[in-house]
């Protein structure tokens, strides 16, 4: 039946790779070779992008707002730090996964608290959990090192082969690889029926349940997955900086995360990546110009972004690339930024 194949074609529309996406990733990879002196900040951006992607999974797709995502980041960070510090798992990739799983367990356990309630409640419950964890980490300073953080973490080479270097080259490519793999996985998930059902729940939980979607179970699943991602981001943080200190749990980290995601746009996975680049670059730019008052300018940019409207900004930003691609490939608008905010 032609209608059926038509339906199949259109149903897969969003799941297909666009040229723009391929170009995007090639560009990211190219950065690794173009700016060999900036590995650190680029690694920082990648970590932040991964972390933001985790928030996007719950906020952009399932509509769960969180101001305490740093909880999972922190657990991942400390888990990776402790594993390395005590030599429990020396191989970074394995340690990364274990740290992610640790965060995932916490995610699963706390998901039951989070799925109830309205947005504001969720914000505050998640925030409360992160703050409690921070307080706990401070209290159990014999394990966590208290305010001094974990001291003396030394990372072993990746796969026993590639050592972390001072310039952060290995760290960058390692982070990029992790980000890309997890991105592929997330991309697959969000385009599955499961991913679509999350969007349905975000749009209208009442109707979602009325077509047979087990709403709570889906929310728990995605929240747990997001916790895993955040844990991995945290573990990457520790592995690439050899630092784990209390501020991994800090409110500011969760709040920045929210800003990054909102700047980049929610619900299409690239928001985190774009937001991370924009946010960090702005921070870097302003704090170089004025180390004391850079917050003012960041604030101004945020205000302007909102007043001008993110959609319009995206359109402006994408105008040139689209124009070029259209000229070259003769296709219609290629890169588009869907907006779907909670």
């Amino acid at each position, binding site marked *: 039946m032609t209608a059926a194949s038509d339906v199949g074609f259109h149903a897969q529309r969003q799941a297909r790779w666009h040229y723009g996406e391929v170009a995007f990733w090639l560009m990211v990879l190219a950065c690794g070779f173009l700016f060999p002196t900036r590995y650190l900040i680029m690694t920082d951006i990648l970590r932040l992008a991964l972390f933001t992607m985790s928030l996007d999974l719950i906020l952009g797709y399932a509509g769960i707002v969180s101001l305490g995502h740093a909880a999972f980041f922190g657990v991942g960070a400390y888990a990776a730090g402790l594993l390395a510090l005590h030599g429990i798992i020396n191989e970074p990739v394995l340690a990364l996964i274990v740290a992610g799983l640790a965060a995932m367990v916490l995610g699963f356990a706390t998901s039951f608290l989070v799925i109830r309630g309205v947005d504001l409640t969720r914000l505050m419950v998640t925030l409360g959990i992160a703050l409690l964890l921070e307080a706990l980490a401070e209290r159990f300073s014999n394990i966590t090192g*208290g*305010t001094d953080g974990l001291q003396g973490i030394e990372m072993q080479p990746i796969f026993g082969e590639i050592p972390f270097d001072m310039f952060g080259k290995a760290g960058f490519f390692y982070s990029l690889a992790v980000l890309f793999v997890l991105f592929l996985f997330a991309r697959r998930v969000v385009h599955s029926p499961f991913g679509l059902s999350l969007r349905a729940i975000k749009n209208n939980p009442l109707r979602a349940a009325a077509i047979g979607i087990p709403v709570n179970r889906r929310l728990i699943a995605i929240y747990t997955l997001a916790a895993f991602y955040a844990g991995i981001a945290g573990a990457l943080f520790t592995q690439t900086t050899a*630092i784990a200190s209390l501020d991994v749990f800090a409110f500011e980290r969760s709040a920045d995360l929210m800003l990054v995601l909102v700047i980049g746009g929610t619900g299409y996975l690239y928001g985190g990546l774009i937001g991370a680049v924009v946010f960090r670059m702005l921070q870097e730019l302003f704090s170089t110009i004025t180390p004391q008052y*850079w917050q003012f300018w960041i604030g101004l940019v945020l205000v302007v972004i909102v007043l001008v409207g993110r959609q319009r900004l995206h359109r402006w930003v994408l105008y040139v690339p689209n124009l070029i691609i259209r000229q070259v490939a003769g296709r219609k608008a290629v890169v588009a930024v869907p907006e779907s905010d909670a």
Partner: protein
Amino acid sequence: EDTVKVGLILPMTGGQASTGKQIENAIKLYMQQKGDTVAGKKIEIILKDDAAIPDKTKTAAQELIVNDKVNFIAGFGVTPAALAAAPLATQAKIPEVVMAAGTSIITERSPYIVRTSFTLAQSSTIIGDWAVKNGIKKVATLTSDYAPGNDALNFFKQNFTAGGGEVVEEVKTPLQNPDFAPFLQRMKDAKPDAIFVFVPAGQGGNFMKQYAERGLDKAGIKVIGPGDVTDDDLLNNMGDAVLGTVTAHLYSAAHPSQMNKDFVAAYKKAFGNRPGFMAVSGYDGIHLIYEALKKTNGDTNGDKLIEAMKGQKWESPRGPISIDPETRDIVQNIYIRKVEKVDGELYNVEFATFEAVKDLGKTKK
């Protein structure tokens, strides 16, 4: 290469911003006074904000070393920040001049670390000794629950109880603590001779205000502690309740030397307020960098610079100080001061001096 670059990493934003500002100001002042060339080299300061978050410190330090090719890294508002940069100093073989952070272990983390600030052990042990000798038998302690607070508490207790004093109540307050009322009430109920207090810079004002509000001063309960609680930066704003507070510290804006008078006057003129102990640490920090360069004759080899710094001795606004050649930590006088009114303003007036105090945290180990 005729410039020497100093990467200055300070908390310029966030809760520790006033530390960063004081140090930056002091450095500016020093360079105005002494010129920006030394041993034929021009000194260039590159300031980075780390908001007292260690991973930012580390990234900033790494960028400074790798991209800006700095010859010194300096600043560091809090201990974790100083520690985060330590391995980089070792790897890059450049001096790390710590101008604020006060935990003992810091200088042990890298052979390239020198400190011009203080350690908490220095003033806490001294005030402990002083207290027992001056008729204070029962003390209640109120310290912020984080590493420096615990350091202060432990060093104080060690000397105080060794001298025969008794700690009757011990309260640790959360780091972010808006209201001291319940803790102070506990202090009051314990009826000690004095309260030993350590709270992070900035919260001293809150503490003293509420101390007075609750009438602990009238109940005859004194405040003693390391000087953070009566930091010159805020002291004048705290009201008369602080009068009589006795603290042990490295610096008072009322230190009666000519050099200090000039320093305070110049600082006030340039920035409109009094310098605190953070300012003087910064001032001495940059001085140390200048002196080291003088001694190496402009050679920027890290090992040579560190060698040159070891054993340096000079007169600072706070009094005579030196760098311990073994530990690279600061050796300085610790003064016992009492808050008094001088010309209508509140000052920590020094009345006893413990000379050339080393970091007791290390020497005892």
